[in-house]
């Protein structure tokens, strides 16, 4: 094996000659190894049509190349297997126990038992009621980011792409929240939402509109508080316990969106600025208006970026943690799967087995978008 070209590992199936891997199998019969291996490509038609590239640059890997490749791929692979998949396996094993983190994992008294799928039963049957609440919150988080924040980010990108003045300034403004950590964003938004005497501007503006005569640019507007619906609404909504009320997940995901919109804007703007202008020109020659140009030409061509954005948004929603944890420790009403894991497995609760079961559920759910993303990427590469 060590002497052979690396490609010889491919199965010798001449019938599959249409695929890149199979194309080189035609060379695998060759005993020529090392540097001279390049000649084994001689028979390949595509390379023979490119005489300058063919022989000089495209030869089989040398032993040194293989070593470098093995090191470069192998070391990350080993780390990946140990740190990621090893942890997943250990986590799965823990999830089958009621271990509390001390002493033997199984085979002892209480909290050292193999409990089979008990932890999962408790989750799915609703015996642990916070689980389904958290699932609903995560789904809401995902839906909000996907259908509100992400489209808003794309819209911002399209607007910023249309040669507005001061692009750099806008871009900076939208991107600043992305630079901040979510924990910091949590603190910033708690101040905005604060309802008490140390209240933030949201409550301030609402109660100002609902209870007093606002003066805007020197003009007294005495009637806002007297407008039947709006005035009453302002009074009702002011002093709302934004981050503690039953619907606290909404203000929290809005805070998360503040950052997410900027992230998507920058990502999409980069794509738009690399966009081939001739396509746009062609569309306008064909008489397409701005909207048609975007939806019929730009959006489809941006497919690779669209896929990345969908995947990023999904991952952001699944790993949502910081904001809820900094706000109230992920307690009711801000339960998320991630905070349940933390509060069970690595808190004073020391329910490591149970918390691991939630982590396994989250891991399995997270695999779905990743598999879809990889499948799509690979299909594109084949094409």
């Amino acid at each position: 094996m060590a002497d052979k070209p690396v490609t010889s590992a491919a199965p010798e199936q001449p019938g599959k000659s249409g695929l890149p891997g199979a194309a080189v199998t035609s060379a695998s019969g060759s005993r020529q190894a090392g540097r001279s291996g390049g000649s084994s490509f001689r028979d390949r038609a595509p390379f023979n049509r490119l005489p300058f590239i063919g022989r000089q640059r495209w030869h089989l890997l040398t032993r040194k190349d293989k070593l470098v490749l093995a090191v470069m791929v192998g070391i990350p692979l080993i780390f990946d297997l140990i740190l990621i998949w090893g942890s997943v396996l250990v986590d799965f094993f823990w999830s089958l126990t009621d271990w509390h983190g001390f002493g033997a994992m199984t085979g002892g008294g209480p909290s050292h038992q193999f409990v089979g799928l008990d932890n999962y039963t408790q989750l799915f049957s609703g015996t642990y009621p916070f689980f389904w609440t958290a699932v609903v919150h995560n789904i809401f988080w995902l839906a909000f980011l996907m259908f509100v924040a992400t489209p808003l980010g794309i819209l911002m990108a399209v607007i910023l792409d249309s040669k507005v003045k001061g692009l750099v300034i806008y871009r900076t403004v939208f991107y600043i929240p992305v630079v901040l950590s979510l924990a910091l964003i949590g603190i910033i938004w708690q101040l905005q939402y604060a309802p008490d005497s140390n209240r933030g501007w949201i409550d301030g503006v609402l109660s100002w509109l609902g209870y007093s005569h606002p003066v805007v640019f020197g003009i007294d507007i005495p009637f806002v508080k007297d407008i039947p619906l709006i005035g009453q609404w302002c009074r009702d909504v002011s002093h709302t316990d934004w981050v503690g009320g039953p619907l606290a997940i909404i203000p929290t995901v809005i805070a998360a969106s503040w950052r997410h919109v900027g992230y998507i804007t920058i990502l999409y703007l980069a794509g738009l600025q690399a966009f081939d202008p001739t396509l746009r020109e062609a569309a306008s020659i064909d008489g397409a208006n701005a909207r048609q140009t975007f939806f019929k030409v730009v959006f489809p061509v941006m497919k690779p970026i669209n896929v990345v954005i969908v995947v990023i948004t999904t991952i952001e929603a699944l790993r949502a943690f910081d904001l809820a944890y900094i706000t109230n420790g992920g307690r009711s009403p801000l339960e998320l799967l991630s905070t349940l894991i933390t509060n069970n497995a690595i808190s004073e609760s020391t329910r490591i087995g149970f918390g691991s079961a939630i982590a396994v559920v989250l891991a399995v759910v997270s695999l779905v978008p990743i598999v879809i993303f990889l499948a799509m990427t690979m299909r594109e590469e084949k094409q």
Partner: protein
Amino acid sequence: MPKQALAAAVAAFQTANSGVTVSINTVDHTTFQNNISSYLAATPEDVITWFSGYRMRAFVDQGLFTAIDDIWAGPIGSLYTDAVKTACTANDSKKYMVPFDTYAWTVYYVPSLWTKNGYTVPTTLDELKTLAAKMQKDGIVPIGLGDKDGWPAMGHFDIIDLRENGYQFHVDLMAGKKKWTDPGVVQVFNVWKGLLPFYQSGAAGRLWQDAAAGLVAKTTGMMLQPQVVQTFQAAGAANLADLDFFPWPHHGTQWDAEEALDAPIDGFMLTANSSTLAADSAAAKALLAFLGQGSTQGLYAKLSTDLIAVANNADQSSYTPLQKKQVTTLAAAKKLTQFMDRDTNPGFSGANGMQGFLIDFLSNPNQDMTAFLKKIQSFWDSLGA
């Protein structure tokens, strides 16, 4: 625990025991609690501060602490009441903790506001409700609450349960010997529901310190919470002088006579897995015995006036009036409980456990109580503890 107060106690130890050097490692309260399990299993210091009761026993059961009966056999043994000794004893009947400081869960208020508005201290639940209604009419939030940390609401459950069902029922409920679906528990939530209209709204999003700030600002009438002295201290000497408390009123049940209340005890324990323990054992035990002395605790309480010493020979001459009142309140109580998160399984009382259930109750008190209590009981049952 305030840093400089602890430093004063330790400095006194070092003066008395030249040749022993004590290094202190103070960690943020919540961080310490959240990481306690991995900390104790891996590389703990010799002596750590922790909470008494079930919360101590759960970790003792895992073999993470060293028994210190020999210290209790020494001079400190006579300084503590039987209730305190019980709180420091684990399931194996050995003692593991040297108690250090304690505080009472009582109702705090600002006397000048009450005098101005003609309020008087309520002694029964009905009087409390009448007073609360009066406060509401005066535009004052009657009962302040900030439950963002999850635990303050537990103190409210505890005291209502102690008054309605008595000490033994409460202790049994916490230990799982009584069910959460018991009619007694239904009664507790019904009484609590009757008080909620007088509670500060939006408790789940507010820190208890911010709720206490409402007392300082005289926008809140009263508040069941320990340690609000800290907030008043920060607000200035004039405010601190204008603060008083009273024990939770009677409910007109046979259990009133117990005068029971939550009085959590903090103390010091000897870890089991410290790498330096073998070499330092004698010095560590000497430190624990020293910390158990009334004179040491008096030094500490002098600097942290929201707490009082546990030892009965502690020097009380430097106590503030509020500290002296805490001493008499605790002495009058025939039964003392620790606190819900110390009296029950830590897995049960956690953030996504009982804390979540209580927040759920506070924001939705009109839900089906039978279903609600059933959920709590099945959660308890699922813990297998």
